[in-house]
């Protein structure tokens, strides 16, 4: 279980202080898929960096499986928004996926197996020897997902992973994430600014306020587990849910302006 309790992050530069996160508390159960959605500039990335142990919060804590997160925990993989910068351009696709496994001291035969099966899983069979920059943006993000999958994490963090790809590719990648989640039984925390994406993907949606950020509201997405782009998005239930999320986000924006 991933627990976030009273998380607060204040950036200070000289005498100026900026409160990015005020007070965040939520939990993600094992095997759940939770989407965090909030207005732009609401500190989503700061939150994700705190959860992944890349950033130390000012107060409050993050616990993963009961133990506090103080640095990047072993069972956690991150997919960053900037796939072009997150994949190492000096390594082939294979080496990119394999490097974290080498660091984990996974045996060579097993590494080969993991690299191949994860590339197959994201639909990139046969691109292992290419360099990332030889691939399209959508394919590069698939490589980043394959790297995360091969790492065999219990928890997968995704920071607006599809913000920089075109709409068509985005729909494909959303379905890929759903499929991988169902197959691998990982816990997924997915950050996005896209309300439709949050409702379509998540089993739960946590709505954030504008900065300084608190949890605005939470809802359970009671859509069927089998979803597809055409029918789910036309489902009256889907439209009702996305309206609720939309209203909450609008409300969050107004509260700050006062």
């Amino acid at each position, binding site marked *: 279980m991933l627990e976030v309790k009273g998380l607060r992050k204040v950036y200070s530069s000289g005498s100026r202080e900026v409160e990015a996160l005020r007070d965040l508390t939520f939990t993600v159960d094992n095997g759940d898929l939770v989407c965090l959605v909030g207005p732009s500039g609401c500190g989503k990335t700061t939150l994700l960096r705190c959860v992944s142990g890349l950033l130390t919060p000012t107060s409050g804590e993050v616990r993963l499986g009961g133990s506090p997160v103080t640095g990047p925990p072993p069972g956690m993989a*991150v997919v960053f928004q900037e796939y072009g910068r997150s994949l190492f351009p*000096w390594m082939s696709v294979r080496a990119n996926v394999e490097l974290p496994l080498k660091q984990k001291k996974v045996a060579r035969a097993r590494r080969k197996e993991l690299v191949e099966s994860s590339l197959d899983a994201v639909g990139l069979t046969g691109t292992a020897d290419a360099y990332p920059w030889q691939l399209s943006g959508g394919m590069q993000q698939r490589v980043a997902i394959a790297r995360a999958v091969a790492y065999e994490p219990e928890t997968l963090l995704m920071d607006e992973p599809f913000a920089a790809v075109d709409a068509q590719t985005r729909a494909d990648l959303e379905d890929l994430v759903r499929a991988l989640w169902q197959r691998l039984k990982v816990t997924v925390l997915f950050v996005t600014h896209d309300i439709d994406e949050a409702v379509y993907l998540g089993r739960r949606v946590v709505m954030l306020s504008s900065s300084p950020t608190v949890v605005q509201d939470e809802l359970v997405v009671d859509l069927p587990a089998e979803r597809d782009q055409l029918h789910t998005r036309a489902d009256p239930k889907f439209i009702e849910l996305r309206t609720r999320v939309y209203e909450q986000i609008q409300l969050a924006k107004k509260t700050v302006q006062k």
Partner: protein
Amino acid sequence: MTVLRKVLFALALPVVLFAGWFWLSDGSESFYSPPLRTILTAFADTWQPERLRADVAPSLLRLLAGYLLAVVIGIGLGMAVGLNRRLRAVLEPVLEFFRAIPPPVLVPVIMLFAGIGDGMKVIVIVFGCVWPILLNTVEGVRATDSVVLDTARAYGVTGPARLTRVILPSASPQIAAGLRQALSIAIILMVISEMFASSNGLGFTIVQFQRSFAIPEMWSGIILLGLLGFTLSLLFRLAERRALRWYEGLRAARRRAG
């Protein structure tokens, strides 16, 4: 067809220049610019295998030793300084000062410490070459992309692997620029240190020819030095193109996208 055209274009001017020199200088009575025919004969007579062994080989060995030492020291120290913000702030002005000193003035200083033997020449080359390598490494390491660093941390790529697989390759284009500058400085210092005080070496031999007014031989020495500079820079370019193939590809990909 295009290959033939390329070869023709590449050879045309050099052939014309060479033929022009040959023809114009033929029958030259000038003491300082003897006919090219005489210079070429002198070249063949002067640079016999025995002389190459006695004068060119020691020069090249000193060059190689000094350059390689400077590479190891420059990259090593550069990584250390580049990774430590405070150390960088303390050392940067000092390093900039050392880089700004015209390298040949180091010869008399190092002669004080190390006499006039091989050691002196190698130290002179190291001392002159190390600054561009060091400063470029610092700059390259400092400019490592923050997403790259986050990715490495999140996937547990730490310790030596972080240095060799992430930071060093990321800084390598910048380091290569420093290595290229250092190579031409190394050749200059090899020649200068031998002109100052030596009993063998290319620089020594050429100055001997000049002092004894062996003009065709002197010209042949200048030509040999030119060939040496050209060959070394060609070898460097080949090595660079091989090592930084990914960087060229990445840049081309970005240009297409931009």
